[in-house]
């Protein structure tokens, strides 16, 4: 008989006890996780929205006290503390509530935050495309049949720029949100047409709109050449319709699979008290496809100009009447009105408020935020849907919620967060410079962990759940690139992450070295068992209170100690 090794001890840890995040447009790599007993209402037709019970760990470790609000905030609403950040946060007020409010207010006004050091690094990076207009990018990196080097340069610059900003910018929340919205409206930058236009996409579509109004944002997305190509709408015409954009607009960008009712006829979809349908069906997608016919690009086709700008082609538009989400769009509306009406209807739908708010809550709070919090945030999203700063208000609502402030460890870092938070914790001065082989080596190692920046092929974006990333490849990938980061140095042997010179002169015993760097990297204490493991590593069998000689071998060991902290499970919580 096969013995159960876990019998008689704490309950066997199993993934089945993880409770599910909401069903997103999941891919093979998605992060849907088990419910202990799936709701019976999960119908084969795409069903009702699943419930969001509170998460529990697979098994129970002795729970550590959550870290300070400073650490929680800087780790989830930023990319982790830079040396001095925790003290600066705590200086913003005399209570946690004051500090958090002050920090959020500052961060939601990014233009007023001086970002000199980061700007200086950007200026030294050798970027040549960041200020080019869409027309210039189109003409100089796409339309002139360029070499791959030229074609892919805007994408490669934006990748390095994203790292620079995430690591060095003081506008940390801005960077977290940019990363979020790049995933929400996923665009494959590692692509023959996505790459040359990626500077425009990042600057003019995502960053320009992400603290503004959602309705404005989705129209900017809908009319941008990268998206029109990525999801094929540039070719969507009455004689040859293409539904790719319309489907993903509904399924991934606005309503979400949680509001998808599948095979019902439109007339059979139940309505809410305001007469709106409670969800969408395939027919809504097909009708929306018709609404977006003619939304194309000035790409020189059929006598058009060749600039990459949005171009509405009236002769391609399906002029007859349509029904989308129980709204009748009469025949022969003026140019673009059909498509805009679809966007209006979506942006004014409570289901969209819930879906988008749920995603933002899952990014900023944890994998299973409570329905109460999501609903409260959705209420702000919906109430402010005409406000020019709607999305700023939504983020404020999330960050000032009780759940944000009191949640810890309900989410794990993905490779991007591991890389950036490690460099920030270590005060690393890592180069991100075009044509620099160190930069290129790091990005190659980083990419192997499975979260290539702007390189997700499928429009659903990278998954945002702990479960999806708790598989060997990204975990090992993160260990590999953090091992590289603590050992990387310039041609003159200057370490980019300078462990040695950041270790005070009076920190020389194994106990001291461990405690100093645990505090620096994690900004909190470890469990006694973990601390012992770190001390023992440093001591290597010696007396942990022995003052160690400051020689090359010991210095390497301290670097490896920092690397060990980056490897630790504790470093992954956020």
């Amino acid at each position: 008989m096969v013995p159960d090794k876990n019998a008689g001890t704490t309950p066997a840890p199993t993934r089945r006890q993880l409770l599910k995040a909401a069903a997103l447009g999941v891919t093979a790599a998605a992060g849907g996780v088990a419910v202990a007993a799936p709701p019976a209402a999960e119908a084969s037709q795409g069903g009702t929205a699943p419930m969001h019970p509170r998460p529990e760990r697979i098994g129970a470790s002795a729970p550590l006290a959550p870290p300070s609000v400073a650490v929680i905030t800087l780790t989830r609403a930023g990319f982790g503390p830079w040396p001095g950040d925790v003290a600066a946060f705590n200086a913003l007020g005399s209570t946690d509530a004051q500090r958090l409010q002050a920090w959020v207010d500052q961060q939601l006004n990014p233009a007023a935050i001086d970002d000199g050091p980061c700007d200086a690094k950007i200026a030294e990076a050798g970027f040549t495309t960041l200020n080019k207009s869409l027309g210039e990018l189109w003409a100089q990196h796409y339309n002139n049949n360029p070499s791959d080097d030229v074609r892919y340069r805007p994408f490669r610059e934006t990748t390095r720029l994203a790292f620079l900003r995430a690591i060095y910018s003081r506008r940390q929340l801005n960077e977290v949100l940019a990363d979020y919205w790049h995933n929400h409206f996923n665009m494959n930058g590692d692509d023959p047409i996505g790459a040359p236009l990626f500077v425009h996409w990042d600057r003019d579509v995502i960053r320009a709109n992400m603290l503004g109004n959602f309705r404005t944002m989705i129209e900017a997305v809908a009319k941008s050449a990268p998206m029109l190509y990525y999801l094929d709408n540039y070719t969507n015409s009455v004689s040859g319709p293409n539904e790719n954009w319309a489907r993903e607009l509904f399924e991934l960008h606005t309503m979400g699979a949680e509001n998808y009712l599948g095979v019902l006829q439109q007339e059979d979809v139940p309505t809410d008290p305001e007469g709106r349908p409670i969800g969408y069906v395939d027919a809504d997608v097909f009708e929306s496809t018709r609404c977006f016919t003619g939304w194309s690009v000035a790409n020189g086709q059929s006598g058009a100009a060749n600039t990459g700008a949005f171009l509405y082609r009236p002769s391609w538009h399906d002029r007859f009447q349509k029904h989308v989400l129980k709204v009748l769009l009469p025949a022969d509306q003026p140019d673009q009105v059909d498509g805009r009406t679809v966007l209006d209807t979506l942006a004014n739908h409570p289901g969209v408020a819930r879906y988008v708010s749920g995603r933002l809550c899952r990014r900023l709070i944890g994998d299973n935020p409570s329905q109460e919090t999501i609903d409260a945030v959705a209420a702000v999203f919906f109430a402010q849907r005409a406000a020019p700063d709607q999305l700023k208000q939504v983020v404020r609502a999330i960050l000032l919620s009780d759940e944000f402030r009191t949640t810890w460890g309900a989410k794990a870092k993905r490779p991007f967060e591991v890389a950036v938070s490690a460099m920030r914790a270590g005060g690393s001065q890592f180069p991100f410079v075009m044509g620099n082989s160190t930069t290129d080596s790091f990005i190659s190692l980083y990419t192997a962990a499975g979260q290539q920046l702007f390189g997700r092929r499928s429009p659903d974006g990278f998954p945002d759940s702990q479960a999806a990333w708790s598989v060997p490849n990204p975990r090992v990938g993160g260990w590999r690139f953090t091992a590289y980061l603590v050992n990387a140095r310039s041609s003159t042997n200057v370490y980019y992450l300078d462990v040695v010179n950041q270790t005070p002169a009076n920190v020389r015993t194994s106990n001291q070295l461990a405690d100093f760097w645990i505090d620096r990297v994690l900004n909190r204490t470890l469990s006694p068992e973990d601390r012992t493991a770190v001390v023992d590593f440093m001591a290597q069998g010696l007396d942990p209170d022995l003052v160690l000689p400051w020689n090359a071998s010991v210095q390497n060991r301290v670097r490896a100690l920092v690397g060990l902290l980056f490897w630790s499970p504790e470093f992954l919580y956020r």
Partner: protein
Amino acid sequence: MCDMHRRRFLVGSGASLLGAAGIAGGLPRLAFADPEADNTDLIVTVFLRGGMDGLSLVLPLTGADRGYYEAARPRLKIPVSGTGAALNLNGFLGMHPQAASHAGPTATSLYDLYLGGKLAIVQACGLNHPTRSHFDAQNFMELGTPGVRNSGFGWLTRHFQSATNLPQDIIMPSLAVGGTQQVCLRGNLETVNMTDAGAFRLDNIGISEWRAAQRVSLRTMVRNGVDEVHETSLQALDAVGIVEQYVNGTYTPSNGAVYPQGGLGDQLKLIARIAKLNLGLRGAAVDYGGWDTHDQQATGATGYFANQITTLTQALTALYQDLDGVGITQRMTVVVLSEFGRRLRENDDSGTDHGHGNFVLVLGGQVIGGVHGVWPGLRNDQLYDGADLAVTTDYRRVLSEIVIRRLGNNRLDQVFPGYNNYAPLGVVKGLDLPPWLPGTVFQDGFESGDKGHWTESVP
């Protein structure tokens, strides 16, 4: 046979109620595993992501359906004669000509394997669910629970959990090749997930002087907790150790096999390499993307789709030929799936949109070759939704047959809960075991009845 003990992940024995579509609760490790009945078969799933256009891979050659096909696909149709002509499968259906391509002078072709009876093609096969969403369809197929998105375990994971004929200690039972673990293996903590063996190790990076000591300390720390972050870190660390110890140096395929350049070739080559190392590999998953051909798909038998088929068929062939050289094909089954096919009618951009029924390929030494299943026809009233090839064989039927006849596991109630009408189709050889029917487990944990059939009764 290596003595290394591998943590076997035993799910708690207090089984809770299994709902009709539910994957709830612990799957009881069946108590009376026969230590002599060690099944060594390997299943490899190749998932074509994006919705492979099955009707460009397998297509009608004659009859009224040929007429409907040609009328619907003026630009995409594969001809029956001349350059780029389809290969004959059974007199009625043909195959894309690139299936006869050779990756090199010593390489055979997938069509040769078909003629040799090693390739089964199941026509009009797929997911019996109306969704045309890539993500839902892929998930439903890989979770093995059409309509249910939130299952915590993939179908292949549930096979490993429910099989009673596997030894206690397997070094590397399953391998997920690619950037992330495929959903069919979701929830399986023993799976090694890697892109290539050189990148999946800690012995060639970082500070060489202290690497080994770091690893010891890391192992201590990951064992200091049992939550998901800790458990999966331990899994990753174990996996790295295995690869470092056993996968070294360059690899030479056997038997004249030539893998095509690029990702799929490399990934199938890695599977072959691991399979040959006697690490106990039982399951492997790999992806091949780029099939969502909404535009510029092809011109007849040339173009983008043809290139994809060339890579696919050559890579599958290489895997077979390579492992045939060492006798492993006798216990290997490769199954090729895609989330749905594409519409019969081409669109205006020389492409195709999301469809429904497709073709499932099964390749292996114990395959019963040929075309299987029921052809539904391409007349408009025979199409699904008036647009797509219909589904006449549930994909779970094919996988279930492989799980029973090749893997020797008849716990379909676990592997495909809610799938109640299994009957073998005849695509692989092997012993038919009557499948367990779904039902309740008594409160005291005992299940009763004859093997393959049991009744509820009040204790």
